[in-house]
């Protein structure tokens, strides 16, 4: 599972992120704290298949995902820096095994950019990523 693998990796990266507490694998839950990070799968590219039998698993998946950081306006710079730190932990990552899946290459497809405030006026920053991975 892409987001579980990435989430676990980020939670162990020394960024002060804990799954289910301030790091979520779904768009921000209603009960999440103001200072939080979420991971969201976004549209990826078609799979690459080898010469295996019918319904054989793909040799390579090109998945994409988005990381959103948010915090109250007074902490906007810290939230922006966290997004940059996450980008540095994931950009040009691989080959590496996360969970049971081999990630050949993870790369950022954008710099950190400002997404604007959410409905509760918390500022949000975004980075987009692509992950070239084995099946799993």
């Amino acid at each position, binding site marked *: 599972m892409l987001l579980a693998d990435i989430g676990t990796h980020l939670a162990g990266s020394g960024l002060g992120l804990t799954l289910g507490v301030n790091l979520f694998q779904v*768009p*921000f839950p209603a009960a999440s704290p103001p200072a939080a990070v*979420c991971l*969201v799968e*976004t*549209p*990826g*590219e*078609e799979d690459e298949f080898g010469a295996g039998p019918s319904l054989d698993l793909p040799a390579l998946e090109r998945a*994409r995902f*988005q990381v*959103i950081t948010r915090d109250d306006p007074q902490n906007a710079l810290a939230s922006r820096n966290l997004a940059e730190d996450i980008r540095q932990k994931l950009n040009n990552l691989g080959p590496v095994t996360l969970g049971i899946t081999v990630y050949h290459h993870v790369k950022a*497809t954008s710099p950190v*950019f400002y*997404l*604007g405030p*959410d409905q509760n006026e918390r500022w949000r920053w*975004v980075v*987009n990523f692509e992950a070239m991975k084995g099946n799993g």
Partner: protein
Amino acid sequence: METTDLGGVIDSMRRLGKAGPEAAMRVLEAKAQTVAARARELCPDDPDTPGTDLADTIRATKATRSKGGMISAAVIAGGARLRKRLGKRAYNIIAVVQHEDTTLKHTRGQAKFVEQPYLQVVPTVAGDLQEALDQEASRVAG
């Protein structure tokens, strides 16, 4: 977003002289129009939000060729066309927010409304370019 992995297609284009880039520009224009048409279908169109008319602004540009030989075409959403509807502050960011905010709930449409069709079209570009260049080569030879 940029598509650069075209292998031997570039060599084929160079061998055709002026006709090669012109054929490539026709293919890229058609691809951009395909992406734009699909993007208009996927664009969020929520009656209760100010992004309602965003889909109307999505358009493909004509293909251009730089002095260095790079051929490109673009798909654009938003911009000054929204200024009258949304005001000075909002018109230049609504497309970015609607495209990139994956946490928004839409009654119709979705985020990444340009990126998704773009990624679907990219794998077809090299083959269609090669076919167009082969046809051009046959026409020149004939």
